[in-house]
């Protein structure tokens, strides 16, 4: 119903944004390609709350009693597992989709905060390696910029089978972002649309993956933890197969996970939310008696210390942030609102990461725009943000009486909706009922 004219009723089936998309499609003949992540309303960690300590539990004193956050990743087979001060890591994002300054900022911020950052499609840049104390090297289907020297320089290797924004899809970097440096690193001509393959070129299934992991370990002297990253779909089976193939760490990325450029239909309609994905991954690990032996990193829509705490309480060992990290650097800043408006958007709504004209200078290869991000300031902002998340995480863990954030458990939470109760496997608040598992 219109605010100005109560006789005008907007269609629930054809609201204005749907009508606008039909009109856009009819005009251009091409699907909508954009960045960011899923925008639709889905069950999230917001639908869970913690049961703070009371008569049956006792809490820990804030700032006085220890609640540790250290995490070790990759101690199953790797000689040199990763030690982090906080379980909040930076997800893989490519140089190409991001400017060199943005990548450097991520490295600086992660290093100050005592965590890891991750390369992306297109390989490792010297700036990124130089400013990242702990750097995870993504091994992607396209193998753009894939170099065994860089593999050996990395602290861990993440084999990417998929990502939450587009499980089953590859990547794309549109021509406007293919600068000479990006083209050179990817071994392709400047200005062409670069397609990143949707599956690896030299294996076809989990049995092959096991041999691929063996090869990567042989090349890196069995030193580096090997992560396997999947987009959240058939999580139970994917995690089981990744563990069977020999992964040290499994990364599960829910549908809220961001991307630099993908079809909107992919972002909004493929994959499952992070909330059920965590539970399914943990169940797979527990069934194999591998929970806490193979570490689980969860990503996709992590925004606050509450999200981190809930993911950990469901059984994750760590989380990754991508979109939130870019926002911490300055993405969506009201400072650029006039410029967002000039390109048909607004601060808080900007999602055309593929276009290369990012006013905040983050998702661009335009040297003038990229200069707007000071990597030192960006790194500081990111470190501040990670520190806030860590403090929030500790606050919630102490309230539940936990001296280590990994001691959080599903029993510490209830759900506010039936959907969340079913997805997360925790009772609906005020009951002991978990849909699908009985109780009253």
């Amino acid at each position, binding site marked *: 119903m219109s605010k100005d004219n109560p006789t005008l009723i907007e269609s629930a089936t054809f609201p204005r944004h749907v009508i606008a998309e039909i009109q856009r499609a009819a005009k251009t003949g091409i699907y909508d390609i954009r960045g960011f992540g899923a925008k639709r309303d889905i069950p999230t960690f917001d639908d869970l709350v913690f049961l703070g300590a009371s008569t049956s539990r006792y809490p820990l004193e804030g700032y006085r009693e220890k609640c540790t956050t250290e995490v070790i990743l990759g101690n199953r087979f790797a000689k040199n597992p990763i030690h982090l001060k906080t379980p909040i890591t930076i997800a893989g994002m490519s140089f190409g989709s991001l400017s060199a300054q943005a990548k450097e900022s991520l490295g600086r911020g992660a290093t100050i905060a005592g965590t890891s950052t991750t390369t992306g499609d297109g390989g490792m840049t010297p700036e990124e390696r130089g400013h990242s104390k702990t750097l995870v090297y993504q091994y992607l289907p396209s*193998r753009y910029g894939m*170099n065994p*020297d860089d593999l050996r320089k990395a602290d861990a290797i993440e084999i990417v089978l998929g990502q939450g924004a587009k499980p089953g899809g590859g990547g794309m970097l549109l021509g406007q972002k293919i600068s000479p440096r990006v083209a050179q690193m990817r*071994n392709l001509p400047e200005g062409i649309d670069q397609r990143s393959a949707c599956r690896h*070129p*030299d294996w076809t299934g989990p049995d092959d993956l096991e*041999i691929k992991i063996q*090869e990567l370990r*042989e090349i890196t*002297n069995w030193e580096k933890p090997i992560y396997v990253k999947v987009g959240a779909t058939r999580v139970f089976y994917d995690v089981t197969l990744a563990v069977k193939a020999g992964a040290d760490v499994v990364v599960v990325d829910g549908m809220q996970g961001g991307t630099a450029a993908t079809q909107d239909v992919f972002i909004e309609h493929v994959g499952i939310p992070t909330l059920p994905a965590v539970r399914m991954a943990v169940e797979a690990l527990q069934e194999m008696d591998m929970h806490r032996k193979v570490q689980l990193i969860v990503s996709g829509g992590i925004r606050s210390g509450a999200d981190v705490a809930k993911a950990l309480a469901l059984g994750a060992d760590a989380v990754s942030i991508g979109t939130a990290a870019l926002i911490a650097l300055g993405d969506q800043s009201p400072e650029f609102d006039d410029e967002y408006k000039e390109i048909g958007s607004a601060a808080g709504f900007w999602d055309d990461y593929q276009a290369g004209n990012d006013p905040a200078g983050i998702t661009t290869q335009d040297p003038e725009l990229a200069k707007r991000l000071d990597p030192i300031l960006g790194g500081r902002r990111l470190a501040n943000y990670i520190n806030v998340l860590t403090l929030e995480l500790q606050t919630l863990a102490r309230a539940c009486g936990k001296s280590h954030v990994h001691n959080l458990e599903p029993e510490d939470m209830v759900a506010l909706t039936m959907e969340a109760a079913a997805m997360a496997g925790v009772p609906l608040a005020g009951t002991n009922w978990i849909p699908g598992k009985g109780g009253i």
Partner: protein
Amino acid sequence: MTEINLEKSTIRELNEALQAGSSGDKFSVNNTVGKHALSVGLTTKVDVEINGHVGYYCAGMNQQANIIINGNAGPGLAENMMSGQVRVTGNASQYAAATAHGGLLVIEGDSSSRCGISMKGVNIVVGGNIGHMSAFMAQSGCLVVCGDAGDALGDSIYEAKIYVRGKVKSLGTDCIEKEMRDEHKKELQQLLSQSKMSHGVEEFRRYGSARKLYNFDIDQVDDY
């Protein structure tokens, strides 16, 4: 010459020894029985002679080493090779030299499907035939085929060059036959000589990208 017998040594011991080799060192590897990930991640100009069939990813990510396999090779032979030379006296399975950035891979026999998939600068010379979808999304480098090529050769190819002496069953999307100019004949001659193949360059035809798919065009959508 250092001999490594895989009946007695583990794959880890083999690769550790080869990776620690200095330029000019010579190794012979025996009793391979199709084992995987042999002779991977080498970084120096060692000479390695492998006697027997090998499994997946033999010579993976090779840098500088000269590796000869007297036998057949499994999938992913010399995947992501950066430099050096790998030679197989028999046949190779799928994805030979996948994503390889440099060096020379010589397959004296046949190579199965997806030979040179996403190749990024490597040169590949195949004495026999190659399977379907070879040079799929090939970015740069040369694929020389002395026999026949299977279906969908060079599908979605970028700037790589393909030379085929025999028949091509079908070309993939955006792959076309191109004129064989003098610079191509010279390049091909050099690759044939390096590979010890005796065919004349005039027997080959050249294929490459029509470059119509480089930027998305809705009118090309039926090509995908």
